[in-house]
């Protein structure tokens, strides 16, 4: 029943996409498309939420007579799928709500409207797919539709290149998954997930894991497969960026979880180590990239990389624990990862919406040309602030809870028997802590430079608050950030069936604990109560304010800021994003990015401005991608000569082929 409902919603979305092709020129197309998408996603969200809470373990399945002729398209909704459907459709609903307002500013709606619902449908289908063919088909369909959306503004410099790299990497990932499924299904081609589950574990399970890691990782943005992400995500319209960053990467995570925890059978301990290590490196690198970045949307995209890393840390730990028969710990790691999946989708969408609002208000993505927006766009600023706090893992918001859970999982690692893991996991913990702290720094920069201070340009000075639809969807997400932060118990309980299904255990029920505290393992070990903290902070702040204003002065006076006797009006003297991140660049950048600073000082007496230039190297790009491209073009160059031979040379080729085959034959006989 639930499944039919979902499939109908998806069908509606697809239909909308097709209809949009016809009526893209029409004025009301925008409202209609986003409206329908909103409704469809809301319904799907309701169904998914219901099935997550109410559905029993095997879930519902049905087969449509499409796709591979003798196989048909299998669909299934179980706890895992239901959870990810919640994430997907929550993102979809808010993005559509946002799009109702944001879409009006779109200059080429014809290039957005048809593909937007298709993209949503694709993501839903991937989560529902229950056989290898349907999975990859929808997976690639999702990539294709999002590619079309990335190419929507193809005339802006760099976007076409971004789309190219994106589709190429997506196909690379699909190829990896293709091979993985080839191993899982075997030569007989048992592509249905049930067949794969029931089949004995694939002989080269390790290879399958690596392939799945490459395939899903290239879509999720694991370092070093992340290069396309910060180019492609910002290139799309902002609500699509939100979907790609907040939701599509999660679908990739779903693919990984589905393959590794569900299809692949019992894990081996080194899998966990590998995955968690990759996650740690990704988190750290991602946040460092973000700190070096001054383009608001690209900065957010790099933070997606970071958070994906955090999620993969949790997944890796879960795999490691599961490999050592520690279901409770595995459940903790898994729950942490999945909860972070939800949280990240929420606050990343929120942040991208904020960035989109700024973009529409100012037409600028470069933070160095913003500033002081908090005066012109107070609501957007507030929403963005909450989002920043949440993504920086600050209590009492939701980001903190999931990272806290991840830490709790890390703290269980000493129980692991393998020495490598014993030593590896604390290092990963250090990386995680480092990236959390750096994330805070990065968002101080992002919010401080673009919203606070004095406007650096005319456009920033004349910005205006964004429309109601956008604000509405942003504030929905703000509420979710806070709710998931102060009432995490309910969310963790909702995840119980998922971890039960995958790890064979779940965290203790949280909801009946007093003060809504969450206790991953035991009260004596660790506990956290977002609600209490929130109440205390509110109380303390309130009391403080009340007391002071009641019994002490409440007087205020405006005056010029202290300028150390060096009067200047120009906002140029403010700290820029570049100068803000300079200390951190000094500390980490010189190693990670081989950052070099060159200062050009004019000679004495010359009044021209001094110039400082910072050069950063993207090491993965230089080490992996450039050589590959060089190799291909070298081969192409060499082979190209064959196009320009004489006919006699071609005849010689034929002759040679014949003689060679004859010799082979003579030898063979």
């Amino acid at each position, binding site marked *: 029943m639930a499944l039919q409902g979902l499939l109908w919603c998806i069908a509606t979305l697809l239909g909308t996409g097709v209809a949009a092709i016809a009526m893209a020129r029409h004025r009301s197309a925008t409202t209609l498309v986003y409206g329908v998408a909103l409704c469809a996603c809301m319904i799907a969200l309701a169904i998914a939420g219901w099935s997550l809470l109410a559905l029993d373990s095997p879930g519902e399945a049905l087969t449509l007579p499409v796709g591979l002729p003798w196989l048909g398209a299998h669909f299934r909704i179980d706890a895992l799928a239901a959870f990810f459907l919640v994430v997907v459709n929550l993102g979809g609903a808010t993005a559509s709500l946002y799009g109702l307002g944001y879409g009006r500013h779109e200059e080429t709606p014809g290039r957005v409207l048809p593909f937007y619902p298709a993209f949503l449908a694709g993501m839903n289908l991937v989560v529902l797919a229950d056989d290898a063919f349907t999975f990859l088909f929808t997976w690639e369909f999702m990539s294709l539709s999002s590619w079309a959306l990335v190419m929507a503004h193809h005339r802006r410099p760099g976007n076409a290149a971004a789309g190219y790299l994106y589709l190429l990497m997506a196909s690379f990932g699909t190829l990896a998954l293709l091979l993985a499924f080839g191993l899982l299904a075997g030569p007989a081609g048992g592509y249905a997930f049930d067949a794969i589950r029931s089949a004995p574990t694939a002989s080269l399970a390790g290879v399958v894991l690596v392939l799945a890691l490459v395939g899903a990782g290239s879509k999720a943005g694991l370092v070093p497969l992340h290069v396309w992400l910060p180019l492609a995500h910002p290139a799309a319209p902002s609500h699509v960026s939100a979907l790609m960053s907040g939701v599509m990467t999660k679908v990739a995570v779903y693919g990984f979880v589905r393959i590794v925890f569900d299809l692949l059978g019992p894990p081996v301990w080194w899998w966990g180590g590998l995955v968690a290590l990759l996650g740690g490196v990704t988190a750290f690198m991602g946040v460092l990239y973000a700190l070096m970045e001054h383009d608001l949307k690209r900065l957010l995209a790099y933070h997606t990389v970071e958070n994906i890393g955090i999620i993969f840390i949790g997944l890796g730990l879960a795999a490691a624990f599961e490999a050592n028969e520690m279901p409770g710990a595995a459940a903790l790691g898994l729950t942490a990862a999945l909860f972070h999946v939800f949280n990240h989708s929420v606050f990343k969408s929120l942040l991208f919406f904020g960035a989109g609002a700024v973009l529409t208000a100012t037409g600028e993505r470069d933070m160095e040309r913003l500033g002081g927006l908090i005066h012109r766009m107070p609501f957007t600023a507030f929403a963005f602030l909450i989002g920043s706090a949440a993504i920086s893992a600050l209590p009492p918001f939701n980001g903190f809870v999931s990272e806290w859970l991840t830490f709790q999982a890390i703290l269980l690692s000493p129980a692991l028997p393998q020495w490598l893991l014993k030593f590896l996991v604390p290092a990963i913990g250090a990386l995680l802590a480092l990236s959390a702290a750096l994330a805070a720094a990065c968002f101080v920069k992002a919010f401080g430079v673009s919203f606070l201070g004095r406007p650096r340009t005319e456009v920033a000075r004349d910005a205006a608050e964004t429309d109601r639809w956008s604000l509405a969807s942003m504030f929905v997400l703000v509420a979710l950030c806070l709710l998931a932060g102060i009432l995490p118990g309910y969310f963790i309980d909702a995840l119980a069936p998922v971890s039960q299904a995958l790890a064979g255990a779940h965290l203790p029920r949280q909801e009946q604990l007093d003060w809504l505290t969450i206790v991953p393992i035991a009260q004596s070990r660790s506990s956290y109560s977002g609600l209490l903290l929130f109440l205390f902070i509110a109380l303390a702040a309130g009391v403080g304010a009340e007391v002071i204003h009641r019994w002490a002065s409440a007087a205020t006076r405006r005056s010029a800021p202290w300028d150390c006797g060096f009067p200047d009006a120009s906002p140029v003297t403010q700290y820029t994003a570049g100068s803000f991140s300079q200390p951190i660049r000094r500390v980490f950048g010189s190693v990670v990015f081989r950052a070099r600073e060159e200062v050009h000082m004019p000679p004495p007496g010359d009044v021209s401005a001094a110039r400082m230039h910072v050069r950063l190297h993207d090491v993965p790009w230089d080490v992996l991608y450039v050589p590959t491209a060089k190799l291909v073009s070298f081969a192409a160059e060499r082979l190209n000569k064959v196009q320009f031979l004489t*006919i*006699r040379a071609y*005849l010689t080729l034929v002759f040679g082929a*014949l*003689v060679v085959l004859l010799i082979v034959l*003579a030898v063979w*006989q």
Partner: protein
Amino acid sequence: MDQLALDVAHLFAGGLVLTSFMLLYQDRMTGLINTFALHALVVSFSVAWQAYIQQAPHLYVTAAIALVVKALVIPLALHRIIVRLGIHRTIEPVVGIGQTMLAGIGLVALSVMVMLPITAQAGTLAREDLAFALSVILLGLLMMISRRNAVSQVIGFMSIENGLILAATGAKGMPLVVEISVAFSILIALIVIGIFLFRIRERFETVDIHVLHEHRGEQP
């Protein structure tokens, strides 16, 4: 089937191979064409002989076709063409005669080697014929790639056709389909070649493929 018949057939087949070598050896246009006429003549004889020993009258037709078309008409036509194009100059093989000869011998050896494992089931006659036919074909190919001039390439190609006829007639009782198709293909070949030579004459002052391939849709 008596020994004599076999020997004669053998003789003709061997003669064909020999003539192919002569074709390879020729480096004058006129000489080349004449040798080709000889080549065709040998083919028609061998076909006729096959017709005789197989009591297959329809093969006489093939023999006649070969005799008339290939041994007379085409050589004359080619003479006309080269006269019109004024290419009496010696044509230089790309690789020296010596190497070409050596390669040719190697090819003959190869074709024999390939044919050896074929069981006697197919009949010794067929087997030998096939070996020779294959070597004629390979030699024709070798000629095509060792010459740079359109006319000589065409001649090389037609020597391949002769080899095919040899093989076809050697295959006892093969339906008329094959002969027809061979004649048919020769016909087409002639037409097309004619058209092409004509056009090429019209476009360039030479039939040299080398000049042809200067014109390319795509510059390197």
